[in-house]
Every structure is written in structure tokens, then in C-alpha cells.
């Protein structure tokens, strides 16, 4: 069962459990190429073998100021609607099966997180937000208008 396999990582200064279904791989990034005139959450482009991936800065997606990309930083490669994206991660912790059930989010979150987080899950004595990586890639509402 892949359904309860999660990637535990810290993105946009928050520990989250990412649903693994859409995740392709975790790699390190070289120097990305800027994309002038693109929305701020697009941190650039970089090549992974013969593919060109679009680098997404989750900080901007959840409403925080952008963070510069560090060479060698780890990114989470995700395929959404036929395009390859890479999410900048602050830290990759673990890939693991979590048997605990996903529960409804009880507290009030920052609007950016409220939009992308689906549930909370209990993992090694801490509550993690459950996030579908694809949610971090769709255009944020705040930028659409």
C-alpha cells in the first residue's frame, strides 16, 4: 500500500508529511536558471538528466518572503499534469509508512497553509500537516487575482 507512505520534510519552515503518490524523487539542485517575468513562486529552472524542471519556492506559495536557493539544496521532484516540478525543501527527514489515521485540521492555520494542507497526522509524538505536493504547485489564489 502506497497510500500511507509519506515523505516527512521541512518545507517553508514547517514540518509536513507529503503524500508520496505524486513524488518522483528527491535530488539536489545545482544553480537554477532564472525565469524573468515569471511569478515569484517560480524560483527558476534546472536540468535533471534530459528533463527541465521548474523550481517552486514553497515559502512564496504559503505567503512567506522568497528564500534564495543554495547550491546543493535538496528538492522534491513532483509530476503534475504532465510537467515536472521541483519543490525546494529546507530539510528532508524520512520516507516512511505512517499507520496513524489522517485527521481533520482542528486549529486555525495561516491562510497559505490552510489552502494547501488537507489534514494532520500523528508521527513520532508530533503532529504533522498532511500536504499533497500538487497543491503547492497550483497557482496560489492570491496571485491569480
Amino acid at each position: 500500500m502506497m497510500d500511507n507512505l509519506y515523505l516527512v520534510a521541512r518545507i517553508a519552515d514547517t514540518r509536513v508529511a507529503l503524500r508520496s503518490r505524486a513524488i518522483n524523487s528527491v535530488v539536489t539542485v545545482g544553480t537554477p536558471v532564472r525565469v524573468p517575468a515569471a511569478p515569484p513562486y517560480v524560483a527558476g529552472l534546472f536540468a535533471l538528466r534530459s528533463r527541465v524542471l521548474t523550481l517552486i519556492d514553497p515559502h512564496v506559495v504559503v505567503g512567506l518572503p522568497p528564500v534564495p536557493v543554495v547550491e546543493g539544496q535538496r528538492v522534491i521532484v513532483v509530476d503534475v499534469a504532465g510537467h515536472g516540478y521541483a519543490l525546494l525543501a529546507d530539510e528532508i527527514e524520512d520516507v516512511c509508512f505512517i499507520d496513524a489515521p489522517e485527521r481533520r485540521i482542528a486549529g486555525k492555520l495561516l491562510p497559505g497553509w490552510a489552502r494547501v494542507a488537507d489534514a494532520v497526522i500523528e508521527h513520532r509524538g508530533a503532529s504533522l500537516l498532511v500536504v499533497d505536493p500538487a497543491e503547492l504547485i497550483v497557482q496560489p489564489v492570491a496571485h491569480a487575482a
Partner: protein
Amino acid sequence: MVAAGLGAPVTAMDDLLNDFLAETAEILAEASGALVAWEGDPADRERLDAIFRSVHTIKGSSGFLSLPRITALAHAAEDALDQVRRGHRAADAALVTAVLGVVDRLQELCAALGKSDVEPQGDDSAIIDALAGTGETPASTRPVPSDREPDRFEEEDLSLDLQAWRSIRVPLPLLDSVMTGVTDIVLARNEFGRMLRASGVDASVVAAFDRLSDSIAAMRQSVSQMRMQRIDKLFAPLPRIVRDLAQDLGKKVQFTTSGGEVELDREMMENIRDPLIHIVRNAIDHGIEPLDQRVAAGKGVTAHLTVLARQSGNQIEIEVRDDGRGLSPDALVAKAVASRLVSAAEARALTPKQKLELIFRPGFSTAAKVTSVSGRGVGMDIVKANLEKIGGIVELRNEEGRGLSIVLRMPMTLTIISGLMVRAAGQYFAIPRGAVREILLENSDSVRIDRVGGGELVTVRGEQFPLLRLEAILDCEAGEDEDADERAVVIVRPGQGQSYAISVAAIHDHEELVIKPAAPPIMATGLYAGTTLPDSGQPVLLLDVQGVMAAAAIDASDVERSEGDGPGAPEDEVREMAQLLLFRDTDQRLRGIRLSVIERVEEVPAAALFESGGAVRAQIGERIFPVHAARLPETDAAVKLLRLYDGRSILCYPIDAVIDIVRLPDAIQPAATPGLIAGVVLVGGDPVELIDPFWLMERCDPATSIAAVPQRQPLCSLAGDEDGWGNNFLAPLLRQAGYRVAGADDAHAERPDVLLCLADDPAQCRIDGDVPMIRLRASLAAAGPEDETVYRYDRQALLEALHARLTKGAA
């Protein structure tokens, strides 16, 4: 199907069946389009033959596979069509509907076959009877039978079928894997080449590598051609969809397609098939108004729906254009707020463009209520998503009340193009080589750059282009360690008849680039056409020269550039370029007229046209207009009129049908003598006669025309009109000649331009101010040589005198 039970031949039979299904699906899709076209023009023998061959092929192959229902249906349709071919039967709407019925049933059967491998049981007699149920041609109108022997038809058909066998079917995944393989080979070659150059190997190794390179280039060329298909294929099912839908909804739609010869990658085609059908359905269902609303809006009853494809550089554009009601931004906002897609506060902050783009939000449906036609859960959001998947974009060009154009723009192929690598703002960008016209260094002698009014112009050998700095377009700082001597100007041609210049920090080189669509947020900038991985291994963005032009809002048209069109001119001017309305004249000739002289296209009942005084005129509403026609049209049906307007008067020109609006070609072959036809131009390879509006208007003299548009008409004042002669006899004549008439008693604030004195004693005709006066006399003979009076029944002299007084007054 005993063989199927025996095991071994099963796969062979399956293959045959799959081939048959694929082929039949293709044939049927084309046939229904051809049928609808043929219905419009039953005299089109070639089309009839093509349809006949289609059903003949289906009959042949289905017989071989022992599919009795399909064979019977195809046979019946073939019979009916053959009777038409031999002139035993007329082609009418009933027959076309019946054959379309067969096509539908065949499609159902094929769908069932695809699922279960067995032809389902059922009764087709109703459909076959419908074919027989249409009447015979009366003997008198029967076409002259062909002098060929009837059996010859069969031979001819078979020879054409053989042609079709000279191609094979290849499963799409196989084709795709070949393509991916070639793409990887190209990338590996690039990397290998880079390593070779770095290692400084022997010249003979480099030569061998170059040979390998050349054959790889040739191979990828063939592979990309393998994947290309004419866009005709995509258009084939549309006429049928339009016909059926328009009939269901009781609307009249004239559907035209153009640009069918444009080629597009197969995969692209698959991705836009459904969006295109959806947009066409939407246009008919929501865009085009019901007949009464069209009339009320002053439009022709018959709506025009056009699907056109064109290629510009590495991009393909498919435009679906209707002349319906267009989108109402306010209605869209109201609906979005009502369905809680946006809050009222958000809605207020939307720009007009964003309001229109609400239709792309998931869950938005423009119909006031979901209809059976468009409300199928496929929305514009799916259309947009499909396009974005292949690196395309959807553009709306809305004219509220007058129509909507939806433009699908996508890269021509996911394959390889030749690109020019340039540098700006410290990074590389690629420009499609096909769009590059010329490359010059900025400090070269033949280049002059002028700053004018905040914009820049570059003049190259007397030709002027708007100049855009790439850094400025991309809103970036200039890169470090840039050498001003390296700056170059790249003159690009984004489309036919357009060009502008991009200034870049440096030119790098040419490279074969594998282009992949960029992610939607990047494509949404409108500046890029995709991404690529060149030899360097660093991703590079491919610039969309058309998008850059749009983003900079420059007028890039080549027209009258030498007169000094500056940059920053509104984009609208591009649209104001001379356009030509193509139409079929009443004598069935293809003609064109400048769109700018047409006020509107009107459809009037034949009864609105009448003959009077040897000229044909049309009554439209409360007004009467002259009509350019020698005699009344011999029809009871509605007549289409082009209303030409020269700023003063209106002339109606009857036509058979409007075909299209195109750009007026530059090359006009002038006519030998002045007349209705000013010359001939080529539009899409067809000769089109160009109407001379000057000649037309000249013939309907505006001065005497009833249709003269009210303008500043001179005011004649009648004085001394005691017996009412002036009012009863003179005033109508004056009014017809284009004057306004006031009696002496009328309290007119306006000073008359001329005074007509009807009394014998001029003292009775006094008026304040200096107004020229004409005295009329009742006797035929003048009192003497000094007599300046005019005999009151001398119409010519009176009008001349009036004219003379007025021109003198004006001078």
C-alpha cells in the same frame, strides 16, 4: 467466426479487426464532414465520388471480416449514392440526413465492436428504408448521363483504393518511443560533441562525428515528419457537429474553415480535439444568439462561425471566431460571485481581462442554465488545462455584442527546432531561427538607433523597425561584464507582414534545440514558447517572438513603416489594416471588397426589393436605398445585401454569401478598364475579383440619391407664396434636390441660405440680413436682357441658379 475458436488465427483476425476499426473511424469522421459540405453544393461531383468511395471501402473490408450489419448498411448507402452519381436521383437534405444516419449507426456498431469483438444483434431496416424513402429526380432535371460505361466507376474506385494501401498503420506509442529515442540521441550527441571539443581530439575523429551528426539530423527530420498531420483531420468532424447543433437549436450558421493544410504534431492534435469541439459547441449554443435577437441587434440572421488555422514561426494558432453576442464581463462577474468562485471584494479588483478569464475557473459555466448541448461537465477550465499540457495558451478576443474569438496557440511540435542563442541580463535565451530575419551588430554602420518619445527605433538600410531591449521586456538588470561592442540587433518576423527588432547583449550561436513545453506559470507570462536543454546542459528559455510583441504592445506591421510609424502605437492599428470581405456574388463568382466601406451586411426578404424608375431599390426599415442590380432577383428567399457607405450615401450590393474576412493582399492585378472590378487578387491561392467601391458609388450619384444621408442641407426660404404654389409645387422639387424648405411664415431661428421670391414685387420679399435672392416669374418670356428672374417651371435653370447663389455665398 469458427476460426476464432481454433485459437491460432485469433491474433491475426484481431489485428485485421483493429485495423478495420481504426480505418473506418477515420473514414466516417471525414465522410460526415464531406456529406455536409456536399449538401451545400450538390453539384460537387468530386466530393460525391469521395463519399461514395468511403462507403465502398467500408463495404469491402466489412464483407471480408464478415460483419453482416455493417456490410448491409454500407451497401445501402453506396446504392443510394450511386444512384445520385448516375443522375437517377437528386441530392437533397433528406438523403444527406439518411446517409448521416447510416454513418451514425456505423459508428455505434464500430464502438460496440471495439469493446466486444462481436457485431451486436440489431435491426437496421429503419435506417436503410430512410435511404430509399427520398424521391426520384424528375426526368427533365436529370443530369446528362456520363458517357463512360457504368462499370468503369468500379474500376476507377478500386485503383484509388490501392493508393490507400501504400501506407501502413503504426501504433502511436511506437511512434512516440521512436521520437523519444531520437530526442535522447540528439541530447547525447550534443553532450558528446561538447566533450569532443573540450578534449581537442584528432580532426579525423571530429569528421566522423560530424558525419554521425548529419545522419542524426536527417533522421530526426524524418521522424518529425512522420508525426505531422494536416489539421484538416481535426476539422473533419466539425461541419457535422455544427449542422446538427444548429438544426437542434433552430439557428442558422454558416460554417467555414480555413488553413486546413497547416501541419501539426499528432500528439498536439489529440490534445486539442476535444477542446476545439467544445469551443465550437459553445459558440453555437451560447455565443450565437437566437434568430430574433440577431435581427434586433442588426445582424444578419445567418451567423458566421469560422475555424481557421495558421502557422506563425514555430507556433500554430487555431482561431474559432463567431459573430454572436460575445462575452459580457459584468455578467461573468455576477455569475462568478453568485456561484461563489470569487468574493464581491475580489471581483471589484479584477481588470477587464481578468473578468473575461473567469470562464477558465473550474466550476464556471457561462450558460444561464446548463443545456443538453454544452453542459456536459467539460468546461473552459478543461480546455485551458489541455492546452497548457502541451505548452499552449488560450486567448480571448472579445467584442461584446459583436462576437468572440477564442485563439488556441500552441507550439507546432514537441520536437527539435533550430534556435539562435542570445545573451541578455547575464543568461541565455533562444530565439526560433525560423523567425529571425537578420542579425546586426548595434555599432555597425548600417544600423541607426533613435530614441523617440520614450521608445526606440532602429533604422537598417532605410527600413525602420520598433526596437525592444530584451532586458527591458524581461524587466531585468543588464548583466555584468557586458561589452557594448557585442550588443546586437536581431530583426524578427513574428508573423506575416510583421517585424520588429530585439536588442540583446550578445549573440552566441545556432543550435539544434529540443523544445519542451514549459510549466503553465511560465507559459502564462506569454513571453516564452518553451524550454530547452542546449549543449551547455543549462536550461534555456525559448522566447515567443509573437508574445514578446504583444507584451510590449508595439505595432510591428510592416505596412507604411517607411513613413515613420513609431513604436508604442496602439496595437489596435494592427487590426485596422486593410481587410477584405470575401463573398460569393449573385453570379456565383468569388469577389472581395474592402471591409472598411461596408457598413453592415443585411438580410432582407425578397419583397423588400422593388423596381422604380428603372432602378432597383430596397426598403429597409423606414428608409429606401439604391441597390446595385440590373433587375430584381428571381427568388422568394431572403436576399443578402452589403450596405456600402461612403460617408454620405448608402448603396446596397446584393450577394449570395459572405465567405470570410481576410487581409487585403498587397499584390493587386489591376483591371484594364474602370468598372465594377478594380482588379484581381489571390487569396489562399484562389483568384478573387476586387470590387471597386469608387466606381459603384459614382454610379449612384449622392446628390440626387434618395438615400443621401441627412447632412447640412441648404435652407431655402419661400417668400411671397400667397397662393400656395411654392409650397405645393416648388417645395417637393427643392426637397428632392437636397434642400430644406421653409415658408415665409415659419418661425425659423436659422438664417436661410437663399431666398426665393415668388411675388411679382420684390419689395414683398424682405428679409433681415444679406441673403441671396432668386426671383421667380410666372411668364415664360423674360422681360428683357437685364431680367434676372427665373421662369418658375424651368427646373434646370432654377436649380442652376440656386447652385450658383449658394456657391457664391460660400466663397
